């Protein structure tokens, strides 16, 4: 444990959502890695079986089982700052159902019969609210699991790569979804228990967005939607794939003097400096427009009033080393 405060001290379940294509899974993985420091144990959950986490960590597809997939970043050679442990779990509704039956009724074998009979199809087809409650139920169970009764929590934090922004309200509003179907009974009780965890200060919902119009709009809509569900705690907004500014806003304000630019390029040993200067000036101008657009979208996101973090665009494949880099960015910005 470090003495340093982060923005989300006290949060045990981090739900990460975002529009498709914004890098939600990458950010969830980086956040989980960032939280897994100082000997802490963190579980990263994939809620919609796409095996994106396995790909990010360069592993074979994850089974329905909590497996250690990485060691969190430690302090540089500082023995008092050890790394942590990162576990991962890919949840599918079928596994979650069997788990639920085992955990609460000790009837895993009945679960297999149900699977054969199409119970899982039943749950996912006719009553998706039921399958959502099983998935969120697994995540909340992991977040509250203790090493022994009355002992410390097994995981210091759980990070869930949740469904995209368009579905997140329904996904998290489990008791409302189930109440239409089950007014009383065990599944209703289970949904209420899950809802209590999701709507406690121990859970925060983070949004991932890029600095583009549509994802920003969807993020603001999602923030507003979740804000209307009583008890849900909004987390931070993580701007992903931000392109860094090539020069200061001041430098980019006016187009550069082409002759001076050509002279500089000549000094650097380049040829055809005039044509090159013209081309580079055009690239700078386009970049400057892009930066203005980013600034505008960033301001929109900041208007939501939640803490905002920013991760740079990674050119090239996202590998484990990149995840560590993104994790340390998140740490430096106070997200973990």
């Amino acid at each position, binding site marked *: 444990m470090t003495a340093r405060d982060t923005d989300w001290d006290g949060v045990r379940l981090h739900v990460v959502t975002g529009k498709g294509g914004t890098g939600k899974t990458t950010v969830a993985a980086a956040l989980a890695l960032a939280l897994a420091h100082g000997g802490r144990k963190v579980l990263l959950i994939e809620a919609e079986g796409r095996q994106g986490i396995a790909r990010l960590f360069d592993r074979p597809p994850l089974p329905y089982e909590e497996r250690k997939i990485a060691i969190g970043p430690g302090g540089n050679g500082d023995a008092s700052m050890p790394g942590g442990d990162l576990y991962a779990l890919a949840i599918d509704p079928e596994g979650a159902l069997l788990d639920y039956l085992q955990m609460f009724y000790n009837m895993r074998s009945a679960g297999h019969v149900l699977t054969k009979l199409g119970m899982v199809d*039943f749950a996912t087809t006719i009553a998706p609210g039921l399958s959502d409650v099983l998935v969120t139920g697994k995540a909340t169970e992991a977040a509250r699991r203790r090493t022994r009764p009355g002992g410390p929590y097994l995981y210091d934090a759980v990070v869930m790569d949740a469904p995209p922004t368009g579905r997140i309200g329904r996904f998290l509003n489990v008791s409302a979804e189930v109440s239409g179907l089950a007014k009383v009974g065990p599944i209703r009780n289970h949904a209420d228990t899950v809802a209590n965890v999701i709507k406690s200060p121990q859970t925060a919902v983070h949004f991932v967005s890029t600095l583009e119009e549509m994802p920003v709009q969807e993020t603001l809509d999602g923030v507003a939607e979740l804000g209307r569900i009583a008890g849900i705690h909004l987390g931070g907004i993580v701007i992903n794939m931000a392109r860094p500014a*090539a020069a200061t806003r001041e430098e980019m304000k006016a187009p550069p003097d082409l002759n001076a630019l050509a002279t500089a390029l000549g*000094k650097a040993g380049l040829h055809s400096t005039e044509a090159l200067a013209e081309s*580079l000036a055009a690239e700078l101008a386009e970049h400057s427009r892009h930066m203005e657009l980013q600034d505008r979208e960033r301001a929109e996101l900041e208007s939501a009033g939640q803490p905002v973090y920013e991760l740079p665009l990674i050119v090239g494949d996202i590998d484990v080393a990149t995840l560590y880099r993104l994790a340390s960015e998140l740490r430096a910005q106070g997200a973990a």
Partner: protein
Amino acid sequence: MTDMKNPLLDLDRMIDDRRTRIIVCCGSGGVGKTTTSAAIGLRAAERGRQVCVLTVDPARRLAQAMGLTALDNTPRLVDGVSVAAGGSLHAMMLDMKRTFDEIVEAHADPARAAQILANPFYQSLSSSFAGTQEYMAMEKLGQLRRSDEWDLIVVDTPPSRSALDFLDAPERLGRFLDGRLIRLLTTPARATRPFTKVLNAGFSVMTGALNKILGAQVLRDAQTFVTAFDTMFGGFRERADATYRLLQAPGTSFLVVATPEPDALREASYFVERLGEERMPLAGLILNRVHRSPLVPLSAPRALAAAETLETIPNDPLVPAANIAAAALRLHAERTNLGDREQRVADAFTSAHPAVPVAEVPALPVDVHDLAGLRDIGSLLADDALADRPAGMEPADERESRRGRG
């Protein structure tokens, strides 16, 4: 793209061919499917087709661009479309619950329909099952096609978890409705003297378990729903099969939409393979948001080396632009790397699917908000030599010369 071996997608030939009656745009979420569908619809309308664009969940401003304000399940005429060639453009947003309700009403007598519509399981199924949207989009497509009011329907598939969901949803729903669970659930309710027959072991285990998990009330609701729905199963199946055949019919073309990102192209690959297996006609791949490498022949490493050189010049008054030149060179290197990386990702796709025609749309500085923007996208898709290109995009002749290289 310099190494592109694949044929170019000839969009105009496709939309001008009167035999093309349906274009399905599919691909993973966030790749610009809706914008692409709208742009194709607009272009086809302005080239003389009677077009209806069926969208599922358009971004607000795009919907406004097409004059769509409500999710009302009715095709609306889009204003501002050139009718010089005799075409027209309608657009509609899918209301999946209403579409589902209409099917129920069409297949059940009024009393039974009312009973189904009021059942909590039906309400859950019709408003939140992830596959319902896919299924209803295909159902609506079938309806629009049968109405024969339009000679071209462009459909934008729902933003599903997987690009393939809309192909599988009808089948999955059909399989589920024919499933053993349903048969078992309906048995006691249909039997004249319930529970006097010998119940099989599976059933008793199941009802016991379901009662435990769900509670008796839920099970009763489920049984009521399934029983009420039972009379419609046949009709449901037939509709799903008819839609499936429609997708295989000669007048249907699929366009797979992607961005030059590994995830999006991985989905695109699955899709291309799947369409092949299902004997569904793939017209081509549309690659959106392509960042082309800058045209100046200066490689990223050389640009970076030059930037480093300039950064060692400490405020030389003779080289006043050293800082900005270094910044511009670094920017150039970054853009070149990005372009090269996208090229590699795209190459991985095209070399695996060398016969798939490809069209590229460069990354645009802003999102599309109006018909003019959609028209520009249409031009880019069809590879027009467009004179009045908006600021920030490279002129067409450069794109041509790029195509010629390599």
